[in-house]
């Protein structure tokens, strides 16, 4: 039973990590129907930004809490700027092009950003400082759930609640939903669609940056390539949960994380990915729109 609980907690942690990235994928897809493959790179840039800020601040001896807040805000702002710019450069000119064109553009952007960080920063692995200390009250269960696991879990939950609230109850949320339903109609009733899309990219990128900081601190190392694999897994999770749905992204991530963890624990980590993707295939066969996805009606 202990072993089951340990694996369950590992799976939840993994799921929460995927969820922080998957939320950005699902938001962008929900609004403009684009799979933003550069999202993993935004996450990586967020991790690098917080790394640089945190390193500089710790040299000047700032307290840990101040470092986390400043590094988090800096990473969120910087990554948002990247997200905003990417949308303007790589996706906006292709908004009326066939669906495949922005997809290719997104893959190109992803490769460009990876290589840009490789050249501008380093190809080495860098040690990421441990921003989340070991809490004393966690010590009795530290062998099951670590302090950073707990912080990631709480962050994911809070972010999911805030996002759901923003989309359901605020003006910008209403505009987002309108744009998602019918972009032309939204424009006709006076919604500035360009601003709504930019806002979506900014929010998604800021989330990815916060995720980048927390996850890098959890793993303890970063390099230019971390966004790729994390991005693929998060994307899988978003599709699993029903791409376009916020609770779906979180649910899909948790299901994916738990599947991987139990597959490793009870079968073999050699087959971790086999189980994860077999599950994806199965769910898509029986429910093509994902766990919580809405059945898409064909637009006429």
């Amino acid at each position, binding site marked *: 039973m202990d072993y089951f609980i340990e694996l369950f907690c590992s799976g939840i942690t993994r799921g929460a990590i995927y969820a922080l990235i998957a939320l950005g994928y699902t938001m962008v897809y929900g609004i403009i129907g684009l799979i933003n493959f550069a999202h993993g790179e935004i996450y990586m840039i967020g991790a690098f930004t917080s790394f640089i800020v945190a390193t500089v601040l710790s040299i000047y001896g700032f307290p840990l809490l101040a470092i986390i807040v400043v590094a988090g805000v800096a990473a969120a702002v910087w990554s948002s700027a990247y997200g905003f710019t990417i949308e303007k450069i790589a996706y906006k000119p292709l908004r009326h092009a066939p669906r495949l064109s922005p997809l290719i553009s997104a893959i190109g952007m992803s490769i460009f950003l990876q290589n840009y960080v490789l050249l501008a920063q380093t190809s080495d692995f860098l040690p990421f400082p441990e921003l989340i200390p070991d809490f004393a009250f966690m010590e009795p269960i530290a062998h099951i759930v670590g302090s950073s696991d707990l912080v990631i879990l709480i962050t994911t939950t809070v972010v999911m609640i805030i996002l759901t609230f923003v989309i359901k109850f605020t003006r910008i949320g209403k505009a987002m939903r309108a744009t998602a339903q019918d972009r032309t109609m939204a424009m006709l009733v006076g919604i500035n669609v360009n601003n709504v899309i930019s806002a979506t990219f900014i929010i998604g990128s800021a989330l990815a940056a916060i995720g980048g900081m927390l996850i890098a601190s959890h793993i303890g190392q970063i390099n230019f390539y*971390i966004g790729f694999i994390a991005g693929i897994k998060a994307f899988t999770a978003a599709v699993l949960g029903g791409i376009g749905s916020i609770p779906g992204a979180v649910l899909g991530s948790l299901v994916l994380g738990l599947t991987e963890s139990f597959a490793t*624990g009870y079968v073999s980590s050699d087959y971790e990915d086999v189980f994860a993707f077999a599950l994806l295939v199965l769910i898509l066969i029986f429910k093509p729109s994902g766990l919580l996805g809405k059945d898409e009606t064909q637009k006429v």
Partner: protein
Amino acid sequence: MKLQLSGKLLSTAACFMIALSAPALSSAADTIKFGVAGAHSGDLASYGLPTVKAAELVVEKVNANGGINGKKVELLVEDDVCKPEVATNTATKLISDGVDVVLGHICSGATKAALPIYSNAGVLVMSPSATNPALTQSGEYPNFFRTIAPDDAQAKIDVEFALNNLGYTKIAVIHDKGDYGKGFAEFAKKFLEDSGKAEVVLYEGVTPGAVDYSAIVQKIKRSGAQAVMFGGYHPEASKIISMMRKKRLKTDFISDDGVKDNTFIKVAGKDAEGAYASGPKDTTKNPLSIQAVEEHKEKYGADPGAFFENAYSAALAMLNAIEKAGSTDLDALKKALQTEKVDTPVGSIYFDDKGDAIGVGFSVYQVQNGEFVEL
């Protein structure tokens, strides 16, 4: 039709000529013909050319001192492009030129293809770089020696260290599913099982780049392993060891050359303390090694390339054996190689009866106070 027939006749005649002339040439030689075979062109040339340079340096020095037993040493350099199908031609060409000993080949596949040809002619072959374990361990190539440790040497030294120095009986073997890491893990598993002293309680591959390794760490904990033996590179190693320490797991960590990298210590920080990793023996303080590198810099104006020291050592060992044996007869040379210790840039070496150099290879290092210390 007529033309074809005469062509066949001609080639048959040529074969006869070569077959007849080869022994005649070598017996009448008044020089020692020292063959150098390996990749000297193509995409793997950078592995083969340093060996040519090493041979040139050694032979030049030996000839300046009056040669071996009064005979000058003559170099015969042949390219095999690291391809097995070319290597057989290379070997045939060298044999027909009357070669006495061969330094090479460079790649394991090419070496394997060429060896039977040298073996039939009774020619000693010594490779500075062919690491395939079967080349020596299968016993099929009695004329083959090498001055580099075979691929399984790291697994062997790590396993011996875990069993004999640390006295462990339960070991988890983990790898990164890559060629290098999985190869190491497979050898480690085999040696552990063959030893009969320890049990492999877990044997699994992890996915490189995963965001979290806590599930596999929990599995290691449940397996009751006293040590984790990891085959792979430092990024995964540092993630796994950090996660182990985070989960308050004090199991020892033993790994390979891919982890014996300062980045491992830099990234894993205090979690890396006490971890073991095997790596090539440190030769940078060996005066002969320093001297060989200096000679290379002086003559070619650049730092030596891959396997230079191994090749330099092989050339020294072979010429020393010829001198001691007083002939180039294979059995006499083998006996000299197995009994006479020779000082070389890779250390003071001699050879076991299978052809592997004793005194070359890997040591176990431990992270102590943020540095790898040779144990």
